[in-house]
């Protein structure tokens, strides 16, 4: 962090979670699309590869097969053309011709049999000899007819031989022609298809692929449906290949399940077909594997991406909330907060600060804080920059404070507002100072209290010094002068009175102090109101010449009160009643039961209190501000103390008064426990 970013109404730098999610989603989509495309491409590529490979294989195989077939056919043709064979055939010396058949088979051991047929198709000679077939009419056979039609060599379809060895064979046949061109017979040799199957096995194909060979009639030489019974079925590929076309693609093949992928090629010039194929599923297996892998990776990416998106969004939202939360806290703080950067410029202020300085929305962000926080000391002198609280906090990397009793802040409308300031440096994670924060507190109330205290102190000191003056003064006179008897008595009387007065004031002040410190302990007992009231009144009686009386029922229950406090309450109220009423007017104390409490009312016919007075009378130094009251000495603490004493014992105090006519101060305290059973609901 290189400092405090300026944040304000216009410079919101929060990250939009939607943007982040959108980016991540796009990335995932792209990845998946790419993988899919890649897979598709791979599949296509693989197909192309397979086809190319298959076609090449098919072509090669067909060429090899063709060569093989040609070789066999040529041999048979050659033998059919041999003069010795011709001569024997012409002579009808089939037995002698049979020697050549044996020869043929010696040259080509692959031939399973060889035979001679007369021009009508009767088998006249055979090697190996087979009596069962000798002489039989084979004129309808494909190889015989084919040879006759070809006028030379002919490759037959696949058929099942009747003679030995009974095998599935193809036949190579060729006419034996006389010098005149007359057909003398047909020479034929058979090759078990097994011999040709080797071509299908010559090239090892991957993925369980096979080479299939079909004869010109579409009979398969290979595969589960090999043999003259079956044809290629509906395989388009085979049909096309038999028709002389080469090509490839998806195909079906007889006897092979499912869709195959491969290529076909014709075996020229025999009209045969070679098909190189593999199951489609096997063909795409590498792609499938790749796809699976890609898909797996893609899925992982997707999951990770989505998770990341969710986490990021949540994180951003949480940061936003925190930011909002922090911002909300700052806005809510009732004291002014100023945040400054390390160069002394304002980075942020909260609404309370705006209110304190009466900025009314004026933008101060970026301006020196010294311009915003113009401070004056206790004497009203402006505080210089180096002495500024916030500057000191930043400079010294320590908390600095200015008292609410001394500082004043200049507001925008020119007033000097009493403030207290606490400033602290703002440190980053390495401990370097990146700025400072000042909390500015309106100290007007404190100042008021200060002034109140000063005036109270002067009041109290006046109250203390007056009796003290008299005590000291009169004592000095008594000591230094030779006073007359009358004067001496007067002097002593004054000393006495003043001592009492001083004593009471000190007691009052101490009570107040204890009340405020919460150190007065209530020790309640059952107090007989009538008895105590009489005693207290009696103590006043000796000094006053007026009527003081107690009114109370005999059945008045005792109250649950601290006896000393009760005495003090009564004393205060009676003393006030006497002080604030003219001499000779009566003062009465009336006590009566009121439900669960006992009410005591002290009534006088004195100067009374106005409504305004009544409101303040029980407050500290809440003396009525009237000449008749000021004339009488008093601290203003008496009723405050009395109120506290009453309330501490669980009671209440109030006054009814008429200015000029008199006052009745009443208080109530709870009835003592054992008497509560008598309470009738």
């Amino acid at each position, binding site marked *: 962090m290189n400092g405090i970013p300026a944040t304000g109404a216009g410079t919101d730098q929060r990250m939009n979670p939607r943007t982040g999610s959108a980016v991540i989603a796009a990335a995932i989509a792209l990845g998946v699309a790419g993988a899919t495309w890649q897979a598709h491409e791979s599949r296509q590529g693989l197909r192309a590869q397979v086809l190319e490979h298959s076609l090449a294989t098919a072509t090669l195989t067909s060429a090899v097969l063709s060569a093989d077939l040609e070789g066999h056919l040529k041999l048979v043709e050659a033998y059919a053309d041999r003069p010795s064979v011709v001569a024997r055939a012409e002579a009808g010396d089939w037995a002698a011709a049979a020697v050549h058949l044996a020869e043929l088979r010696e040259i080509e051991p692959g031939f399973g049999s060889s035979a001679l047929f007369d021009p009508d198709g009767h088998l006249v000679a055979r090697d190996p000899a087979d009596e069962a077939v000798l002489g039989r009419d084979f004129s309808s056979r494909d190889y015989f007819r084919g040879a006759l039609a070809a006028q030379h060599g002919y490759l037959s379809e696949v058929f099942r031989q009747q003679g030995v060895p009974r095998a599935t064979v193809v036949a190579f046949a060729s006419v034996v022609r006389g010098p005149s061109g007359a057909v003398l017979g047909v020479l034929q040799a058979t090759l078990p298809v097994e011999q040709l199957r080797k071509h299908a096995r010559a090239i090892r194909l991957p993925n369980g692929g096979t080479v299939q060979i079909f004869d010109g009639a579409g009979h398969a030489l290979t595969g589960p449906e090999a043999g003259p019974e079956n044809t290629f079925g509906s395989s388009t590929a085979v049909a096309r290949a038999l028709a002389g076309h080469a090509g490839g693609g998806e195909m079906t093949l007889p006897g092979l399940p499912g869709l195959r992928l491969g290529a076909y090629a014709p075996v020229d010039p025999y009209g045969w077909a070679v098909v190189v194929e593999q199951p489609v599923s096997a063909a795409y297996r590498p792609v499938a594997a790749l796809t699976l892998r890609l898909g797996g990776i893609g899925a992982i990416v997707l999951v990770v991406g989505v998770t990341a998106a969710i986490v990021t969004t949540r994180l951003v939202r949480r940061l936003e909330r925190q930011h909002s939360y922090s911002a909300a806290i700052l806005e809510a703080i009732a004291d002014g907060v100023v945040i400054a950067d390390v160069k002394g410029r304002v980075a942020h202020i909260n609404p309370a600060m705006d209110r304190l300085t009466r900025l009314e929305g004026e933008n101060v962000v970026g301006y020196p804080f010294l311009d915003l926080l113009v401070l004056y000391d206790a004497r009203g002198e402006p505080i210089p920059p180096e002495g500024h609280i916030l500057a000191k906090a930043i400079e010294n990397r320590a908390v600095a404070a200015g008292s609410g009793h001394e500082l004043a802040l200049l507001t925008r409308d020119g007033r000097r507002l009493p403030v207290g300031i606490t400033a602290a440096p703002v440190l980053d994670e390495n401990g370097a100072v990146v700025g400072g924060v000042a909390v500015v507190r309106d100290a007007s109330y404190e100042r008021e209290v200060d002034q109140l205290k000063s005036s109270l102190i*002067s009041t109290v*000191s*006046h109250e*203390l*010094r*007056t*009796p*003290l*003056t*008299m005590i*000291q*003064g*009169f004592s*000095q*006179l008594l000591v*230094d*002068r030779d*006073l007359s008897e009358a*004067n001496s008595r*007067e*002097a002593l009387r*004054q000393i006495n*009175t*003043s001592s009492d007065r001083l004593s009471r004031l000190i007691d009052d002040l101490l009570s107040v102090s204890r009340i405020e410190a919460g150190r007065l302990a209530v020790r309640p007992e059952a107090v007989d109101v009538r008895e105590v009231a009489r005693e207290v009144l009696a103590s006043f009686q000796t000094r006053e010449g007026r009527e003081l009386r107690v009114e109370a029922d005999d059945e008045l229950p005792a109250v649950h009160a601290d006896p000393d406090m009760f005495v003090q309450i009564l004393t205060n109220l009676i003393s006030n009643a006497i002080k604030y009423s003219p001499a000779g007017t009566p003062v009465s104390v009336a006590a009566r039961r009121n439900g669960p409490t006992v009410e005591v009312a002290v009534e006088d016919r004195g100067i009374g209190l106005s409504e305004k007075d009544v409101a303040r009378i029980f407050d500290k130094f809440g003396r009525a501000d009237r*000449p*008749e*009251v*000021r*004339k009488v*000495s008093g601290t203003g603490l008496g009723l405050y103390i009395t109120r506290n004493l009453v309330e501490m014992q669980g009671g209440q105090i109030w006054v009814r008064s008429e200015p000029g006519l008199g006052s009745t101060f009443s208080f109530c305290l709870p009835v003592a426990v054992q008497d509560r059973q008598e309470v009738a609901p």
Partner: protein
Amino acid sequence: MKLLIADDEDGIRSLVRMTLESDRLEILEAADGNEAVELARAHHPQLILLDVMMPGISGFEVCRTLKSDRATAGIAVVMLTARAQDADREEGEEAGADGYFTKPFSPVALMRKVDEILARRGAP
């Protein structure tokens, strides 16, 4: 000579009387500001001891009133107070007081002060 003591506390008045009363000096007592002005105008004392904190008009008011009245402007006024703040002193000076006395005061000191002022005025 006459001296007026204006103080709402009867004890103070009594103390001043006992301290200062003599064949040469008559003591007049006023219990509040209004009474003080009345007595001052009626009897023209040479010196007024004026308590600052009094009910009704304050001592400063009385001082100003007397000083602005040609008939009584010549009377020496000494303020009496328990408050010793600068503000009071300044106000006293502004009001035209000739002196300031803080309570508690010793009667001896009071006597000396009074003699001093009266001597300056010249004995009749």
